[in-house]
């Protein structure tokens, strides 16, 4: 009868129902349709941001003083310049890339591909953190603690990275990555256990665990702290080269893209496989969708809660590991990443599906890299990043707006699936 309810809520009376949280369905038509709204959301966000760019640009006002025609031309040229800078900042200048490829000059190639390497580098921790939150959602748990799990994962990773010496990379690197997973898993499992045993809400407890993690990092890394460098700076020692995640261009400090992106894509595949192909994934999803039915089916709901939170935490921990082992090579105090919170947006944008999270992360990576270039070249404030990301999330979270804007027919989803109902 739920179908009836779904239909009913769209009917006469009062409340507009929040769209039923979409599930990845196997049917192709539905998959295509589920991509349409996010795509239009992105397009719309760019259009509105363009307006913001125009109305904050002084040169447009100056041009309008000389006549409406000149003003309009100037407005479009400002937008064009800004978004061209954005595009080349995120993906590189296609002309330059082609030229570089033909020239065969290594330096020229590096310069040409630099933007896309930055996009990939920024996307890497996003993917891990987004997967962490998405996995929690699948299990019916709202992990707001990815940020804290990121911190603890980072602390243990960096400790293993600098304190152990003399190991070959093939052992040291996996060990350091594992350390990050263990740290994050531990930090996630604690609220998971509290929820399973006492019913304490994971939202509250993961937030509290975030603060514990911040203060723990402060204590360990502040000047004079147990993990601080001896030289009076509030940062950890440099990790051993044997724990470095290999960079693609090891001799260039500016090209920071590293093997982490492969790990991230691999992790997305593993999460997908786990969720949809294994019995554990079936258990996690069943608990997420209907804990009563899970209990009926003989699944130990508390056990699955702890496991889900631990896995979620492990992914958040890996987010920090790849950042530290691949890019920073140390861990600073007051290392406020924000990944853990962006991750919630990524999971939402990606519909809690691993593939969706990867696409959303690449988008966020591109926006960060592109906005930096837009500031450098077109002098558009970097805050445009927040505006873009914010608009995209609003539109994805409220698809009604997009449907209204583009006059899309209400997907009477219930309609096509109703069938067997009377």
């Amino acid at each position, binding site marked *: 009868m739920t179908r009836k309810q779904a*239909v009913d*809520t*769209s009917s*006469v009376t*009062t409340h507009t129902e929040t769209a039923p949280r979409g599930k990845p369905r196997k049917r192709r038509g539905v998959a295509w349709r589920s991509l349409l709204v996010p795509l239009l959301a992105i397009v719309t966000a760019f259009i509105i941001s363009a307006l913001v760019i125009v109305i904050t640009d002084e040169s447009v006002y100056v041009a309008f003083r000389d006549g409406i025609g000149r003003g309009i031309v100037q407005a479009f040229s400002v937008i064009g310049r800004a978004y061209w800078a954005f595009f080349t900042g995120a993906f590189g200048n296609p002309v330059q890339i082609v030229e570089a490829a033909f020239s065969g000059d290594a330096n020229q190639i590096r310069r040409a591909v630099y933007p896309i390497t930055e996009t990939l580098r920024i996307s890497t921790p996003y993917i891990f953190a987004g997967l962490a939150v998405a996995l929690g959602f699948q299990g019916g748990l709202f992990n707001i603690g990815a940020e804290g799990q990121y911190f603890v994962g980072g602390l243990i990773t960096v400790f293993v990275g600098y304190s152990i010496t003399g190991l070959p990379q093939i052992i040291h690197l996996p060990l350091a990555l594992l350390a990050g997973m263990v740290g994050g898993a531990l930090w996630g499992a604690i609220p998971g256990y509290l929820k399973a045993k006492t019913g304490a809400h994971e939202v509250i407890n993961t937030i509290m665990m975030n603060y514990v993690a911040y203060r723990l990092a402060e204590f360990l890394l502040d000047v004079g702290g147990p993990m601080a460098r001896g030289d009076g700076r509030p940062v950890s020692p440099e990790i051993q080269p044997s724990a470095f995640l290999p960079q693609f261009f090891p001799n260039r400090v500016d090209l920071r893209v590293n093997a982490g992106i492969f790990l991230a894509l691999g992790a997305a595949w593993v999460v997908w496989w786990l969720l949809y192909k294994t019995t554990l994934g079936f258990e996690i999803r069943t608990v997420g969708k209907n804990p009563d039915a899970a209990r*009926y089916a*003989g699944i130990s709901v508390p056990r699955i809660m702890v496991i889900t939170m631990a896995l979620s935490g492990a992914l958040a921990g890996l987010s920090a590991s790849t950042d530290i082992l691949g890019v920073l090579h140390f861990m600073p105090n007051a290392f406020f990443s924000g990944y853990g919170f962006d991750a919630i947006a990524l999971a939402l944008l990606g519909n809690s599906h691993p593939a969706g999270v990867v696409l959303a992360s690449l988008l966020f990576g591109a926006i960060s890299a592109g906005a930096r270039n837009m500031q450098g070249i077109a002098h558009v404030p970097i805050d445009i990043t927040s505006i873009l990301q914010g608009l995209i999330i609003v539109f994805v979270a409220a698809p009604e707006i997009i449907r209204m804007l583009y006059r899309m027919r209400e997907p009477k989803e219930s*309609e096509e*699936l109703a069938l067997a*109902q009377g």
Partner: protein
Amino acid sequence: MPPVLELKGITKRFPGVLANDHIDLRLEEGHVLSLLGENGAGKSTLMNILYGLYDQDEGDVYIRGEKVVINAPNDAIRQGIGMVHQHFMLVPVLTVTENVMLGMESMKRAGFLDRETAAGRIREISDRYGLDVDPDAVIEDLPVGIQQRVEIIKLLYRNADILILDEPTAVLTPQEVDGLFEVIRSLIAQGKSVVFISHKLREVLEISDQIVVLRRGRVVGATTPDESNERDLAAMMVGRDVILSVPKTPREPEDVILSVKGLFVRGDQGKMAVDGISFEIRGGEILGVAGVQGNGQTELVEALTGLRSVEGGRIMIAGKDRANATPRTITEAGTAHIPEDRQRDGLVLDYSVADNLILNTYYLPPQAKGLVMQETAITERAEQLVAEYDVRTPGISTPAGNLSGGNQQKVIVARELSRPVHLIIASQPTRGLDVGSIEYIHSQVIRKRDGGAAVLVVSAELDEVMSLSDRIIVMFEGKIMGAVPADGATKAELGLLMAGVTSATTATTS
């Protein structure tokens, strides 16, 4: 005079299914038109088209002879069409007045709600149609029957002339049904017209002026109560003669399979809901548990299936004590459980039919090898079970939530009875189902009993307990008031036991 509502050639196609096939319908002013059909016959689709929730592919709607286009519920309301859904659309913490006002609030100056005027109108409507609803009552304090009247008031408040009632009696007690019929008669007397959707034959015969029977999306018959009877209607609805009570042959019981001794179970309020009861079920025997709801039956079933902890006593299943065992242990010991609330416990509505069919065996071969689930095996199993148990679904990947109640229950029955089980615990197995599904599920349970399984059936429907069981126990306030063989048991006798009159008393009086 043209009919108040006329549908001509309404056709609605869903991918792979013709839900409504050129349906013609006429509702005369001041009449009750019953739309009778099994789940899946197309009743709700048709009414959802009329109400603007779906768009028809072909056909037209006429109101008082004029063609109208209804694209949204608001259009329907403007045309004087109102609908009471099976699940009420009320905000539990608000009052009757506030619920009725929602969506068309009348305002005083400065944007304050004008509750008094609205309450006055509600009182007037309530008096006029004999609804007996207090405008200031809070919804959650009201019984279901009164909540339904609030839904009706909502429609009358919006000046609806044509009221569609979608399975209105499914949620009501027999007394409340009588009350609803009085309300319907009073509406009719004052010139309203009603479309009454149901699959309950007795009710349809009692309240209707006209009866239209739908089957598989087509009108298969139109009649009146005077020209028809239950048997004819059932046959029309299902498309063949229906056995209203499934025949079963006597069977010699075998060894004891379930033995409950001195069982104590606490209810949610902490009181002893099951208060020291003992009984046995043998293989090849169906034990029915009768009783007014809330006398410990739910807790008994939950304790037997491991979903609720046992305070004392023993539950011997095939010779082993399973008191306080986990649900999985009990399932693996060969127990099937058809749960009371199929949508809460028995199914994951978002999951496909295929996944629901392996809900409690997903980890066993051939569905899984180690950690990895075997899609091919799962698909094959689902295809086979859907065919074997006659689950009407567009496909095995359709979410279970999109099936009708009867087909959802068939998914559960298929899952539970296709396993090798020797104990079946069925709680309200046919609640809310149509005749065809009830017949089918009863025959499946009896087939298992004939195969040597022990069966416990808990049902609020006395008819069901009496027709299905070999023996009947009656529960009252957590105790067994008496045990009687089903042969020769009378409703009067069971009714007394259900009311708590001891078997000793009945024994002396009979």
